[in-house]
């Protein structure tokens, strides 16, 4: 059992990486496994600095492959364990992440996106959206919360542990280098004070009871001999996933009710979109925002409703349409035309969006 540091509401002025470490502690996470990669390092730095007070555990591994797999080991031992990574680290950690999917291990990971492909930049991007949702050699049985600032980081990091342990799908807090490195005020709180109960954790191996007396030995597998055997397992996962999706999918709308031009954006770009919506409204343009908070699974019904109401939609990302691709698939049958503003590995500003939406008003898109 770890010592929780935040006992009452505490307003602090922190970087996002610091917030994530505090959030994990508030969620009673008791072990972090990690490997250095920018821009997520300060999560481990903060976690390590707090260790004498929290009495939690930490292991710096030899790479992200082992950070991922040792996190799985810790979870199997019954710890509310987690890790964090970014960019090329996220790529090689997919190995462990797909094992978590197959074996329904409640893996929790914070992804602080940086530019890609390859080493690219250590700064910022939204280019790990598809990877985080669908990486690995499987179907993407994952839950991904895309955050838009420090309060989100705190709220959703806590939530990620409960979602993971309740539904036993790997769960992610998908943020980025800006959120990791930037500093803004945040309210830290004890989850209990908000009525949040942490889902109890239990070991998968060496649990209660004696082998051969109280129980049989546990043999956890991710390998199957027959194709049909595999499909049966995955079909049952899909049923669980669909059921979970209805309970877990989250979204946020901002002035979307009467929006003629609906911006669809996630994460920190959605914050720029808010700024743009306000400016556009001042100019008399009815703009609005639909922000999926869970980008996997998506809140499909509200998304389709919002899109049907609008005259045009605008996809904007610090990537080349990774979210748009996932969203468009869910909009099948709708005919609302769309435009795009993609800046690969670069932040989208309010001004960028104002300019773009104004041009959409002048010459509406027909696609």
């Amino acid at each position, binding site marked *: 059992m770890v010592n929780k540091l935040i006992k009452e509401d505490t307003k602090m*002025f922190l970087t996002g990486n610091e917030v994530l470490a505090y959030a994990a502690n508030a969620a009673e996470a008791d072990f972090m496994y990690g490997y250095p990669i*920018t*821009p997520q390092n300060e999560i481990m730095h903060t976690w390590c600095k707090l260790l004498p007070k929290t009495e939690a555990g930490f292991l710096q591994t030899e790479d992200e492959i082992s950070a991922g797999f040792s996190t799985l080991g810790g979870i199997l031992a019954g710890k509310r364990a987690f890790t964090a990574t970014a960019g090329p680290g996220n790529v090689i950690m997919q190995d462990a992440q797909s094992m978590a999917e197959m074996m329904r291990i409640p893996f929790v990971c914070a992804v602080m996106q940086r530019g890609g492909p390859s080493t690219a*930049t*250590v*700064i910022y991007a939204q280019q790990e959206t598809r990877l985080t949702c669908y990486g690995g050699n499987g179907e993407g049985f994952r839950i991904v919360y895309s955050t838009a*600032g420090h309060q989100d980081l705190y709220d959703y990091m806590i939530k990620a542990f409960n979602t993971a342990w309740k539904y036993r799908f790997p769960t992610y807090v998908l943020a980025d280098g*800006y*959120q990791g*490195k*930037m*500093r*803004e*005020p945040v309210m830290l709180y004890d989850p209990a004070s908000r009525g949040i109960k942490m889902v109890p954790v239990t070991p998968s191996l060496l649990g209660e009871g004696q082998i051969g007396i109280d129980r049989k030995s546990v043999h956890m597998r991710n390998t199957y001999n027959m194709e049909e055997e595999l499909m049966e397992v995955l079909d049952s996962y899909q049923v669980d996933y669909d059921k979970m999706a209805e309970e877990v999918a989250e979204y946020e709308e901002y002035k979307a009710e009467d929006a003629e031009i609906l911006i669809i954006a996630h994460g*920190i770009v959605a*914050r*720029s*979109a*808010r*700024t*743009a919506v*306000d400016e556009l409204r001042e100019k008399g343009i009815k703009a609005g925002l639909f922000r999926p908070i869970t980008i996997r699974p998506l809140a499909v019904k509200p998304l389709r409703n919002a899109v049907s109401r609008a005259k045009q939609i605008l996809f904007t990302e610090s990537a080349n349409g990774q979210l748009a691709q996932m969203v468009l698939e869910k909009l099948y049958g709708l005919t609302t035309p769309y435009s795009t503003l993609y800046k690969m590995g670069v*932040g989208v*500003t*309010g*001004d*960028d969006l104002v300019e773009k939406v104004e041009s959409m008003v002048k010459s509406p898109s027909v696609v």
Partner: protein
Amino acid sequence: MARTKIVLAGEGGQGVQSIAKILVEAGYEAGKQVLYIPNFGVEQRGGVSIAFCQIADETIGEPRYSKGDIIIMLSDRAIDRCERYVSENSTVVYDTSVCTIKPECKCKNIIGIDANKIANEKLSARVFNIIILGVLLAATNVLELSDIKNAMEKALGKKFDAKPELRELNYKALEMGMNLVKEKAAL
């Protein structure tokens, strides 16, 4: 809705991020909404160092912006790198005693200051960045001197207690920085 967007750029080692932190800390303590992003590259040290700071009365949306209200450029490379953040409504401040070029941009006004020279000749090279902090304080005009002094105390208090004359030196630097802008504004 009042929001001040600041771009502060210089060479690694000029103390740009240190004063950005003091500035936003002061804003935070004064009950403002603040947001600060340090620009960071692959290398630990060196390169152009940029701090993007916002101080506002209401919740801040976009963390990064296209154009700043105040852009401070403390080296030639910083000028090259940051002209893109200048709009016709921006105030540009650059250090004439460091830069060999002058920012060429359409903006509300360009203020040349010689903080580096003043620091070296009248105070100490170490407080160059504090002079700039004074410049920022006067140019933005959204925070009180006492806010900054409190934030400095938080960041440097231990050093000040060990060497009280440092506190005086820093306060003097702050004041000189503020006067630099006031003088120019008076012109």
